[in-house]
């Protein structure tokens, strides 16, 4: 355990020391008798990791298991890392300030490709070798989970096992099996051989195929309501209800939509009960709803009415996430007294929206905006993507036209005096497990040209344009469809000093390009088009949604044919065979 006296001095030297101390309200009993200690790590700063609902669920789930203690560890900021190194202190857990070596299992939650170097950063600070093959029996099992497991190939060499799918299933069974094996005195290699047979667990040293683990009955699945309440400010500092998993819309660029299928809802009654408990147990002044498309929740009106009543009684603000344009309900919006409206048409023209299967028509946009503006909306945020397959100049012009439409509608119907419009564009990144997984990303020069066009055209009064960094998008794309050769690139990038790549101020494109070059790999091998008959690095994962379905969707995209929302009628994507799809 870390020397408290040295730590006291260090903490006075670093920014936001509360990040490294724990001590939050609702802290579980980590001194209880236990035979298994797990450390859940998040490869980003405390304020980002503590906002992650998945980590929150798994942390409390493990701590609510008899005989298991789960602690947390986040990536320390660079100033803290310097102090740790200077004072020869290894990275430690928040709860009991133990090193990685004092745990049975260390699990990383990885939600973003640009967090890969942070995993190495944390391993480095913890004093464990990066590659699983170099770690002996004295090292804890180091495993990974989270959304990046849709294609874990670039990071497989770093982990003893990767947990594909939902942690309520695979992490729980992995920990249970390890406890059993520990009692029997089974060594690491044999344990991993046995773990490879568990659903949703892939062991690189064993190989084979893996099927993504999913919770079949979400309504009765574990969901904590006595959650940690951080003492310092975090990104999403509020209670969150998880309405459902999966998404019925099938936007063809969206990985989350396909990855989180099958679609499973929590009942309205369950959610209202959870909301009540969260409000009482946390003292949070805000409650938000989480899902991929809240408007599609089957009992949204009833839920919002119930929550509104509870929220008013308890002086809690109800925060609704962005709603899909086609099912925007002004009534709900008005009730929540919001002053801003977030729309994500994603593409500027109907043609391109049909290509990407964003099932929103011109009329839907217009009528939704009219309703919102007539209810006094003052701020409109619009999200688009540039570089989508088949995109033309006309589509970019369409983005500008939508902004003009908002201005015109505000002049005609707006209740507020002024309207502030924020336009954000992200660069299309072809992601695994989407119908666009074979597509090319546009070259970086083209990204700049398109961003420059929009910068020019959107120079209008009360319109703010922001864009996603093109360089970061290139590296993200290269890593998203990466293969096992990339582990060397990630190691090299880290050695070159790449860390916190998802933070704009820390991201260093040149170092990444140097790292690729050092390993003799051209990133364009990964950002270019992939022939549809080529084996993909993530083919060893049975994700539910089939390749055949994705190819069919791809063909429809090029033909400009949309696929309807699958609520009510199954489109046969294949996810339901994992169990639980309610459509």
């Amino acid at each position, binding site marked *: 355990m870390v020397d408290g006296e040295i730590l*006291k001095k260090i903490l006075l030297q670093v920014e936001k020391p509360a990040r490294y101390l724990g001590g939050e*309200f609702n802290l579980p009993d980590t001194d209880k008798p236990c035979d298994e200690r797990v450390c859940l790590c998040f490869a980003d700063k405390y304020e980002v990791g503590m906002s992650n609902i998945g980590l929150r669920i798994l942390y409390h789930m493990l701590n609510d298991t008899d005989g298991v203690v789960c602690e947390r560890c986040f990536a320390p900021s660079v100033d803290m890392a310097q102090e740790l190194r200077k004072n020869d202190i290894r990275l430690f857990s928040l709860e009991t300030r133990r090193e990685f070596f004092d745990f049975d299992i260390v699990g990383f939650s990885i939600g973003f490709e640009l967090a890969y170097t942070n995993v190495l950063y944390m391993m480095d600070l913890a004093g464990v070798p990066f590659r699983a093959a170099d770690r002996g029996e004295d090292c804890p099992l180091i495993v990974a989970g989270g959304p990046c497991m849709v294609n874990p190939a670039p990071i497989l060499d770093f982990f003893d096992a990767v947990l594909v799918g939902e942690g309520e299933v695979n992490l729980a069974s992995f920990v249970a099996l390890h406890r059993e094996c520990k009692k029997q005195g089974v060594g690491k290699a044999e344990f991993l051989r046995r773990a490879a047979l568990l659903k949703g667990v892939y062991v690189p040293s064993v190989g084979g195929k893996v099927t993504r683990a999913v919770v079949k009955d979400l309504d009765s699945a574990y969901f904590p309501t006595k959650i940690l309440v951080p*003492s*310092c400010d975090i990104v999403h500092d509020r209670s969150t209800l998880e309405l459902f998993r999966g998404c019925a819309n099938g936007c063809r660029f969206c990985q989350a939509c396909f990855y989180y299928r099958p679609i499973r809802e929590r009942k309205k009654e369950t959610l209202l009960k959870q909301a009540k408990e969260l409000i009482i147990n*946390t*003292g949070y002044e805000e409650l938000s709803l989480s899902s991929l498309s809240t408007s599609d929740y089957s009992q949204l009106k009833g839920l919002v009415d119930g929550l509104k009543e509870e929220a008013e009684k308890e002086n809690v603000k109800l925060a609704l996430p962005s709603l899909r344009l086609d099912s925007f309900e002004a009534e709900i919006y008005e009730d929540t007294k919001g002053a801003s409206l977030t729309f994500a048409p994603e593409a500027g023209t109907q043609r391109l929206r049909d290509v990407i299967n964003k099932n929103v028509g011109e009329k839907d946009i217009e009528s939704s905006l009219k309703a919102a503006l007539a209810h006094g909306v003052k701020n409109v945020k619009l999200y688009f993507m540039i570089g989508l397959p088949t995109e033309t100049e006309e589509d970019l012009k369409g983005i500008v036209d939508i902004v003009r439409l908002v201005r015109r509608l505000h002049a005609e119907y707006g209740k507020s005096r002024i309207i502030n419009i924020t336009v954000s564009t992200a660069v299309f990144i072809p992601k695994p497990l989407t119908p666009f997984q074979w597509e090319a990303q546009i070259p970086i020069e083209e990204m700049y040209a398109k961003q420059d066009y929009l910068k020019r055209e959107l120079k209008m009064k009360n319109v703010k344009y922001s864009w996603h960094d093109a360089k970061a998008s290139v590296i993200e794309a290269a890593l998203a469809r990466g293969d096992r050769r990339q582990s060397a690139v990630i190691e090299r990038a880290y050695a070159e000093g790449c860390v916190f790549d998802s933070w704009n101020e820390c991201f260093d494109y040149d170092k990444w390009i140097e790292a690729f070059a050092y390993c003799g790999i051209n990133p364009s091998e990964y950002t270019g088009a992939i022939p549809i008959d080529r084996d993909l690095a993530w083919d060893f994962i049975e994700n539910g949604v089939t390749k055949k379905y994705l190819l069919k969707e791809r063909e429809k995209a090029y033909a400009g044919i949309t696929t309807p929302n699958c609520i009510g009628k199954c489109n046969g994507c294949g996810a339901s065979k994992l169990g639980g799809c309610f459509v």
Partner: protein
Amino acid sequence: MIVFRHRKTGEAGYLSHIDAMRVLQRTMRRMRAEVKYSEGFVPHMLTYATTPLPLGVQSVAEYFAADSPLTGEEELLKRFNACVPSGMRADFCAVVGKNPNLVARVVASSYEVRAKETVSQDVLSVLEGREYFMLRNKKGVIEEVEVRDKIFGIEIYGDRLLLTLATGNDNLRVDSFVQSLSRFGVDACASDVTRTEQFVSEGGKFVAAKEILV
């Protein structure tokens, strides 16, 4: 109006004032203290604290008031302690008619400093002089300031140093003062300091804030 005297020790000692306030306001919500809200465009909870502590300094005597109609000190203390992180538990609660406005009334605080070694008696010479200069960091600018009038008491007990320093509008930062004592060989940092009480001035005498609430 309810007033608590709570500690800010261990992990909580490293919380900024604004973070600590948020923790206490959420504590009020968890204990269902029915605290009133302001009636402005963005209503906020009507709570009041005393002068912020420098980051790292511990305390066993922070005061926090909330505009709540609840009564019953013993029960309120129990509820508060069940709803607050362990580093901020309270040892005293008072129900008063109106806001005691401690932030304006507190004029001094006592501190205990745990030095690494026995403190030299030379430190007492600070009280004998008419002036005492120390360095102050004001928004990144280091300047020398004279603070003798803000030093009310110094006592030495082996490696313990008891200080009484000005607090409030004419505040003397305890961490800076302790740092200045390194000229006498005192080896201590902010986290070696604990605020032990806050005082208001009554008839020219220092009275513990707690006393005026009873």
